[in-house]
């Protein structure tokens, strides 16, 4: 079986595409690829291909945060992207992906939500970040977060006239404060691996995704996978994520 081959290589510290364990595939970041969106980006990590579009709407602020704009993140595993994806409403994995991307953006204070309030308690900008998977070859969390942040960096807020959105005129750039970079580290045989291929993800014991800020602080963590991790594993994985985040940050 193919997974046996993948495992055998990993046991020797090798990978099916010849990369080092701590090496990413080539990453391509394109922005402004969808004209209708207020911000957009397409990120390719090897064969993994993700598009994020940002749309802006007007809504009511949450009662407990009356002077803040609203961030909403969604993700769809479109059946076009993988033979394993099926049509229908977002399942468990898509929901988790959306929430992990959301947490990286939200907890880093990436968007200056306080500047997105139009009228306290009544009107505020809603920022919709929608992740669309085009081709799945592993590492969706890192690719999606990178695409989301790249798209937000290009997002413009439309003009308002009499509280109506004028879609073809823009008032300002989306106010941003921070740039989170999420790096996922997988573990198998006491080895730590970044940027897994789909076939590698399938054999991992577990994974840890860490959203890292400019100053090396962590703002979100998510463990996944069927096996547990020791405290030492977690420390090593966080350190590796912080190290790799510096390389990826240069792409933005």
């Amino acid at each position, binding site marked *: 079986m193919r997974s046996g081959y993948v495992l055998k290589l990993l046991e020797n510290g090798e990978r099916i595409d010849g990369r080092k364990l701590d090496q990413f595939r080539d990453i391509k970041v394109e922005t402004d690829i969808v004209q209708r969106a207020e911000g957009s980006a397409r990120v390719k990590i090897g064969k993994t291909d993700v598009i994020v579009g940002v749309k802006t709407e007007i809504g009511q602020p949450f009662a407990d945060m009356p002077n803040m704009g609203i961030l909403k993140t969604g993700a769809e595993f479109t059946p076009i992207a993988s033979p394993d994806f099926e049509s229908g409403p977002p399942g468990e994995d898509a929901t988790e992906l959306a929430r992990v991307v959301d947490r990286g953006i939200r*907890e880093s204070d990436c968007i200056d939500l306080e500047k997105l309030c139009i009228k306290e308690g009544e009107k505020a900008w809603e920022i919709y970040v929608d992740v669309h998977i085009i081709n799945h070859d592993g590492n969706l969390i890192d690719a999606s977060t990178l695409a989301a942040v790249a798209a937000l960096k290009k997002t413009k807020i439309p003009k308002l006239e009499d509280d109506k959105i004028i879609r073809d005129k823009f008032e300002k750039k989306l106010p941003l404060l921070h740039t989170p970079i999420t790096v996922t580290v997988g573990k198998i045989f006491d080895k730590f691996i970044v940027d897994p291929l789909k076939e590698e993800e399938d054999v991992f014991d577990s994974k840890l995704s860490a959203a890292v800020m400019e100053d*090396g602080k*962590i703002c979100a963590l*998510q*463990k996944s996978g069927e096996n*547990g991790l*020791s*405290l030492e594993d*977690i420390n090593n994985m966080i350190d590796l994520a912080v190290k790799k985040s510096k390389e990826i940050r240069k792409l933005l």
Partner: protein
Amino acid sequence: MGMKTDEKLIVKGKRLDGRKPDEIREIEMKVGVIPNANGSAQVRFGNTIAIAGVYGPRPLFPKHRQESDRAIIQCRYNMAPFSVEERVRPGPSRRAVEISKVTRLALEPALFLKDYPEMVVDVYIEILQADGSTRVTGINAASLALADAGVPMKDLVVALSGGKIDDTIIIDLCGKEDNYSEADIPIAFLPRKKEITLLQMDGQLTPQEIKDILKNILKTGETVYKKQKEVLKKKYEK
């Protein structure tokens, strides 16, 4: 998280409810609370109450979902509509879907699923009253319910949350601390091998701070582990 408050969450080393930083709330645990279930438990941490029921291992239907070499776990985390101030709309929210998934992964390493091919272990968790740390309270209840059901386990699963307020590490966050603390880290682990099976975090912390909080949770978790064992033993003493 992310919300700001003028209220001091720690005053003179005491938290809002009078606890010391690393002190957990009053814990109450009961097993065998749902007669119909194969195993069940109710766990209370302060004002957070979770009830868990386990059905199985039992045959899994529809048949095409069966795994020929192992059992699967299905997990449902659900908040009762009346469990929080503003009514929760019934049905799975995105939050509940994610928590159900991480809860399943938190429990899975404790079980011998390969011993039950084609079967399912259903774990249902209902949050009756929420005051912070509901997912970890739910996992403690599920751990006891699995043991109560007699499902063989490598170890019990202990879960506890930690965080940070004004440079002080706190353990077992209540609702207000959950909303306003600088960070919130829920973890679940198998205490004997200190194997961490659930780890999430939001907030902003340095890697060193995360390490310190995890160490602290693992240590304080021993108390929860002891309580879990006590309540299970008590069941057979009667």
